[in-house]
């Protein structure tokens, strides 16, 4: 066998091996969590309140808290992020300012989430006197996921063919009409992907949330009530040694939620693309 054929085979083997290893790691984590936790998960666990600090009962307030917090975070981050992306891609030409902005968002993406938690605690919880609350947690998460939304939206907007914009402008549409009627509808799949990734990340986030949304496991009645997310609930149960079984049960629900969000994203996107290509 000659040398370049050999190197080809080695490359394929290494690349294939890397892929396999990645898949195996993901599968192992999911299997491990489900195997340990699934026995705890039943309707009662999902729908009832925790009793005795979480040693008994279910996690319903944590599920609700996670959902409210993530939805509120996306609701805050979506208009800001997409707006910024539209501005960057459609209304500015590449210059020092846009490069600085892009560099800034990239840096923001690399910051560990506990730093966001600390910032949220100092700014939203203390300075703005929101207290440990749904609102403070959601705003902190929003800042954390903004870079993802901006970047994925900008990429999606830039991949819309320039000629479509030209056509729209040539029949007398304004920039804004062009953005609204042609660019955004075409960029939607990419934007949705970024949003769903951010949603998934918000669901699983712990460090940024524990300092800002607190850890009350009562049902929240408004945005200024403290909530406990599933991730925080898991952390407290495990850390304080309250109940390993219930902790794994929570983890199983959490993992399944994140998986469900991802599957839903792909399903929505395929449906959307299929509908447009009709």
């Amino acid at each position, binding site marked *: 066998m000659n040398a370049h054929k050999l190197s080809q085979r080695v490359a394929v083997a290494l690349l294939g091996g890397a892929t396999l290893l990645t898949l195996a790691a993901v599968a192992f984590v999911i299997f491990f969590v489900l195997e340990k936790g699934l026995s705890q998960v039943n309707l009662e666990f999902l729908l009832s309140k925790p009793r005795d600090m979480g040693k008994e009962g279910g996690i319903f307030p944590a599920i609700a808290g996670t959902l409210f917090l993530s939805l509120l975070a996306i609701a805050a981050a979506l208009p800001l992020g997409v707006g910024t992306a539209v501005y960057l891609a459609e209304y500015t*030409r590449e210059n020092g300012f846009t490069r600085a902005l892009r560099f800034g968002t990239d840096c923001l993406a690399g910051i560990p989430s506990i730093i966001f938690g600390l910032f949220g605690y100092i700014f939203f919880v203390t300075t703005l006197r929101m207290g440990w609350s749904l609102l403070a947690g959601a705003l902190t998460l929003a800042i954390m996921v903004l870079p993802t939304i901006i970047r994925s939206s900008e990429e999606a907007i830039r991949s819309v063919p320039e*000629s*479509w914009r*030209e*056509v*729209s*402008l*040539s*029949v*007398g*549409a*304004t920039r804004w*009409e062009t953005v609204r*009627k*042609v660019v955004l*509808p*075409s960029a939607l799949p990419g934007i949705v992907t970024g949003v769903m990734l951010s949603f998934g990340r918000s669901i699983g986030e712990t460090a940024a949330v524990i300092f800002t949304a607190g850890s009350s496991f009562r049902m929240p009645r408004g945005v200024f009530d403290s909530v406990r997310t599933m991730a925080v609930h898991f952390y407290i149960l495990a850390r304080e040694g309250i109940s390993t079984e219930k902790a794994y049960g929570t983890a199983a629900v959490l993992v399944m939620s994140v998986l469900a969000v991802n599957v839903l994203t792909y399903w929505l996107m395929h449906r959307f693309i299929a509908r*447009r*290509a*009709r």
Partner: protein
Amino acid sequence: MSGPPSPGRGLGSAKVEVKGLRVSFGREEALRGVSIDVAANRILGVIGPAGSAKTTFLRALDRMNELKIGCRTEGSVLLDGEDIYLPTCDPVALRKRVGMVFAMPMPLPMSVYDNVAYGPRLRQGREPSPKAKVDLDELVETSLKAAFLWDEVKDRLGGSGLMLSGGQQQRLCLARTLAMRPELILLDEPCSGLDPISTARIEEALSILKERYTIVLVTNNTKQASRVADETAFFLMGELIETGPTARIFLNPSDRRTEDYVTGRFG
């Protein structure tokens, strides 16, 4: 279709007067001082080899050049006697009066109906009245008929414009332009990617459309210019070499370079 004939101007008077038009991109001067009139209700064919700034000339007539970075325009373009490069002229309003069909068939990613209705809807409010909807249906139908496409798409107006064939797509783009009821139609090599039958359909449409519209047709195909254009202008390296009635340009050109080009010696 009730396309507006230019008010107070008879057949043959100038719809567009171009004076000393220069367009440059960055340091590169593309169009080097062109002056030419386009007569109302006529087809002006613009011919010339690749790189002779035919498209830049065309795009100067509805201020599309300025969408590109570093573009500078000098000179004047009068549409019905008014300079479209004055600061008081709104390019968005101008482009509603001047329609453009691009070289590549470029339907928008929406249904056939929505493609044609795209321009007219820009003028409607958010909640169009029932009458406006009926009018729009009518406008879509007449526009598609004028572009010789109606019979082929009347049963699938709701289907995506992207699913049509290339020739159909280009006629859809023509219909989209016609639906705006423009005064001036600019066509940038509209048949460059089309088969002879689709090309013939488009040419047929143009020769009928000139009764209502003024048309500027840029083409790489000299035969096409000789078939459909009333006047022909020959561009070379950003300059207008010669213009005149099509028959004269093809049979008895006064410039040697024109003769060489139309007889196929270069280009």
